[in-house]
């Protein structure tokens, strides 16, 4: 078991080193990355079925530092998903990234990110944990720098700032518990200033990684120019997995979050704000990569909401949603990448009618879009459903605010659907733009990962009980038996019904084949649809944006008030101003003053040296007289 865990930890890093340092031939680098992630995935599958495992080597005990590893049901599962997403992204990148610049670095950072994420999940020591966490930040910087340096530094500033807060929180927590281990102590009660401060610092770190409000601004920023696999790997899945994993550990392992406490309400507020803010901003985007990245922000809100409520069902829903999100959001980004690869643009206005040209991409994108919008029977619906029920349960326990959170969650879900209708219409449906014959389905190695992920969306949706609830979430969160849930939902039954519906529809279609009918072009209001009546999906929600009250909301969402990056920038400006005035200028003035004083002193002394002998003699004698007076006056 130990060798398994260590191999799992070392393998991606070894791959990274090989692809970064060794001058491997063209094509071999991809092979190395492929094999490393594949093997890591296989090892992770082996690990999932093994019982929990502890391993500890104390290294520097006064600081509580040791090489402590631990696997649990939760972390093993997450490792599995990290490895899976890493593996699929690698397959996708083989063709997608071929011939681009800095290929060496791309694979090295990709593998490094996977390795660091596995390290974070396996670490059972705070210092080891923060080491891997920081390593991930470095790789994030490396990967985002493939897009542009300015967006990379934006990401670095926000996530790095959040990591700093996390570090502070960890130091306080280590002080509170007196141990460097991440397990084996009873949860700290959230009472008094220090534990609450530590809690919020740690939460800031986790939200910074996950990209919730107000730490969200870097995700849309980097989405514009980084390669799509990077988006699919880090902001869409790994960051969410790690951030929410940490949030879960903070809320229930390190501290004990009470249902209905003020802190719980605060977390739910952040969650709801993130849902609504993210989705409202997503609605008005004209670039689908940016739109997807705002959804990546918005979806975090559900997880924070679920975990923040503290109701077991909602917590389980939040964790489930975290996994679902990494599946469908990766799929969406990869699909977007496929479209961009073929058409060369991500602007919604320039796209259209690709559905028939790229059928596989369309179908997988459709499934993922339904999934994220919470349409049954896909997995996104199931996890959201669990969260909704958890929120209703919150109301049953007498917490009055439940209705606000519930409305935010459901409304956010509706808006998500709305924004995806816009995307689906603009990209895959609607009138085709003039692309010539260039457009065809992408290479199989690019659509295969999308198909895998889309089928996971379906499978996790339909077989949620046997696959997820019983195997994975059951041991982690003590759930009530499904029969006691308020809204009993049977996906299998629904699926049967849907299939029956489809069959019925098919029969009706087949029956109608015999009937004679006339085919003609589309027309609206009695007139044939011409070019001038073409309607791009971009315009769908323009009214929202132009409507007065929403305008204000958008202003607020886009303003500095909700952006951690802007806070940091303003803070930095403030400090640099202070430093400039009180250090730079002051020192400069002092320095110049001293220099001038020295020069003036030299001049005056120089003037005194007139070359007149009696004067010189007088100095000497006066000096001696003073000495004499001093001596005799003693």
């Amino acid at each position: 078991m130990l060798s398994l865990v260590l191999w799992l930890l070392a393998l991606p890093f070894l791959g990274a080193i090989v692809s970064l340092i060794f001058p491997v031939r063209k094509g071999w680098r991809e092979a190395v990355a492929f094999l490393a992630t594949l093997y890591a995935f296989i090892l992770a599958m082996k690990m999932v079925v093994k019982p929990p495992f502890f391993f500890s080597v104390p290294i520097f005990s006064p600081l509580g530092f040791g090489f402590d590893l631990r696997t649990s049901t939760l972390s093993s599962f997450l490792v599995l998903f990290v490895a899976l997403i890493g593996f699929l992204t690698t397959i996708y990148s083989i063709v997608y990234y071929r011939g681009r610049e800095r290929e060496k670095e791309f694979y090295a950072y990709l593998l490094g990110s996977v390795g660091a994420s596995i390290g974070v999940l396996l670490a059972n020591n705070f210092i080891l944990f923060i080491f891997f966490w920081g390593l991930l930040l470095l790789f994030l910087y490396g990967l985002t720098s493939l897009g542009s340096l300015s967006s990379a530094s934006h990401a670095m500033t926000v996530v790095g700032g959040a990591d700093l807060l996390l570090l502070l929180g960890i130091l306080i927590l280590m002080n509170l518990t007196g141990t460097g281990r991440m397990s084996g102590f009873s949860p700290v009660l959230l009472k008094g200033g220090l534990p609450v401060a530590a809690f919020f610092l740690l939460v800031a770190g986790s939200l910074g990684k996950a990209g919730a409000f107000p730490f969200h601004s870097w995700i849309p920023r980097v989405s514009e120019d980084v390669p799509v696999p990077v988006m699919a790997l880090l902001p869409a899945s790994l960051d969410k997995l790690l951030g929410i994993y940490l949030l879960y550990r903070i809320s229930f392992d390190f501290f004990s979050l009470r249902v209905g406490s003020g802190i719980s309400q605060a977390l739910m507020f952040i969650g709801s704000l993130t849902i609504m803010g993210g989705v409202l901003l997503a609605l008005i985007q004209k670039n689908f990569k940016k739109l997807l990245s705002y959804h990546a922000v918005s979806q975090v809100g559900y997880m924070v909401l679920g975990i923040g409520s503290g109701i077991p069902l909602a917590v389980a829903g939040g964790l489930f949603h975290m996994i679902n999100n990494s599946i469908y959001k990766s799929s969406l980004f990869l699909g977007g990448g496929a479209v961009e690869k073929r058409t060369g643009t991500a602007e919604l206005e320039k796209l259209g009618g690709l559905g028939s040209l790229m059928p596989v991409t369309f179908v997988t994108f459709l499934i993922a879009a339904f999934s994220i919008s919470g349409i049954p029977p896909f997995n996104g619906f199931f996890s959201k459903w669990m969260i909704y029920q958890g929120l209703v349960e919150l109301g049953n326990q007498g917490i009055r605010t439940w209705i606000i959170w519930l409305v935010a969650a459901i409304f956010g879900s509706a808006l998500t659907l709305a924004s995806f209708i816009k995307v689906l219409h603009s990209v895959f449906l609607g009138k085709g733009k003039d692309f010539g014959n260039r457009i065809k389905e992408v290479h199989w190695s690019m659509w295969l990962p999308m198909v895998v992920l889309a089928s996971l969306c379906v499978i996790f949706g339909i077989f949620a009980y046997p696959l997820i609830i019983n195997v994975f979430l059951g041991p982690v969160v003590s759930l009530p038996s499904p029969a006691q849930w308020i809204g009993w939902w049977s996906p299998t039954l629904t699926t049967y019904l849907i299939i029956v519906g489809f069959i019925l529809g098919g029969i009706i279609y087949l029956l109608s084949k015999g009937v004679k009918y006339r085919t003609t072009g589309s027309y609206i209001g009695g007139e044939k649809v011409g070019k001038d009546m073409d309607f791009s999906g971009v315009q769908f929600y323009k009214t929202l944006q132009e409507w007065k009250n929403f305008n204000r909301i958008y202003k607020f969402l886009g303003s500095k008030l909700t952006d951690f990056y802007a806070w940091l920038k303003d803070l930095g400006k403030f400090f640099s101003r202070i430093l400039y005035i009180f250090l730079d200028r002051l020192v400069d003035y002092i320095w110049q003053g001293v220099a001038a004083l020295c020069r003036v002193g030299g001049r005056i002394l120089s003037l005194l040296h007139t070359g007149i002998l009696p004067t010189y003699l007088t100095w000497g004698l006066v000096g001696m007289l003073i000495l004499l007076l001093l001596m005799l006056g003693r």
Partner: protein
Amino acid sequence: MNVLPLMVALPLGMGFLIPMVSRKNRRTADVLGNLATLSLLIMSLYLFKIGNQIYFMGGWKPPLGINLVLDGLSAFFLLIVNLVAFIVTLYSVDYMEVYTSKLRYYSLFLLMLAGMNGVVLTGDIFNLFVFLEIAVISAYALVGFGTEAEELEASFKYLVLGTVSSIFILLGIGFLYSLTGTLNLADIGSKISGISAGHAFWFVVILFIFGFGLKAALVPFHAWLPDAHPSAPAPISAVLSGLLIKTLGIYPFLRIFYNIFGFPLLETRFIPQILMFLGGASMLTGALLALVQNDVKRMFAYSSVSNIGYIVIAFSLGTPLGIMAALLHTFVHATSKALLFLTAGSLEYRLETRNIKKMGGLMEKMPITGISGNIGFLSLAGIPPLAGFWSKLFIILALLDAGRLGWAIFTILVSVLTLGYYLRMNRYVFFGPLKKNLQRIKESPVFMTASMLILSLITVFLGVILIPHLRSIVLDPAVRSLINGTKYISMVMGG
């Protein structure tokens, strides 16, 4: 054969011999002068092998006769004096060609050397005064050697001030004689320990501070130096700044205050405090004045005032580390400042000006002078790993070690000033654009460049005397002979 009297007798005899034998051929003077200083250098190296030794002139035992005493301190000073003197005579071979009377130059130079060696070796206070006068009177003559108006004026100023100080020294010696009834240094030491420190004794101390302080150019007794040192021919400037102010100023301070007066002075904190104050004033004043000079040699002269301040501050601490730092800085300053004056001479020899504003970009035209000058600059500015860095470092360490934090900070600040004025000079002289009228400048003749190179090498590698093995030969005995204080007395009187 005992070489101690030779250290004085050889230059003294040679000083008279050279004008007699080499009237026909000038080369003879060059050869004889260099031979004399070379053999003195070899002898001074040989003295390290001997260890402590006392020579009784005419066989008369201490209280009565005059004796020459060799201990670690004298050996150390003899090495510095004769090393620099040899290099300077080498340099003079070419440089002094432009002056008319080379024979008199060698004669006076060797007399001065005899005086300095005598001061360092003698064990008799009146004899010390005599040697001091021999050295300083030769120096008066050498400062005015060019016989231009300016040089004669500087010489006259030096003469008047120097004589006043000599008279005060003589007065002090008289008071001491009246107190103790003896002139032998060791004997004075043994007698004075029985006498309570009255006003007369303190008066002597003040007189000595004035007298030797003026010879050492401590502020406020420094005013003659910036006139006298630049006026002399370059090799003489090198000797004056590098050696004379130390052998006639610093050495008697060390010898008399540590070995002879030892007990009352080291017990009261008053005299060391006064000396530190004077040293600090010298450091700051010299540095500030050097900052605004445009005359190369004048700037070096002010820098000497400043550096004497470093030395005085360090030895006033009285701790072994402080004494070692002071001695090390004495050595470093002797070689570096001599090197700088030789460089300045080389510049003046070719450019016929000493104004830095008229120079510029000379690094390419006079590479050896440029390199030597830079080494000298950087060494005294305290750039590692040159010698000056180590000595300044040790001075600051010694100040910190003695708990004088304020003085340490002050020293560091003055070091910054020192760095500032040397860099300023460096920029004006060797770097920057080459002036149009300087296109045809050539490097100086061979003897000048050779001697500059030798001194540069010494300056670069002087740091090695901190290596334990060398330190135990050169520095440690000198430090020990001061730390042991009045053991000097028993050494002389017992032997």
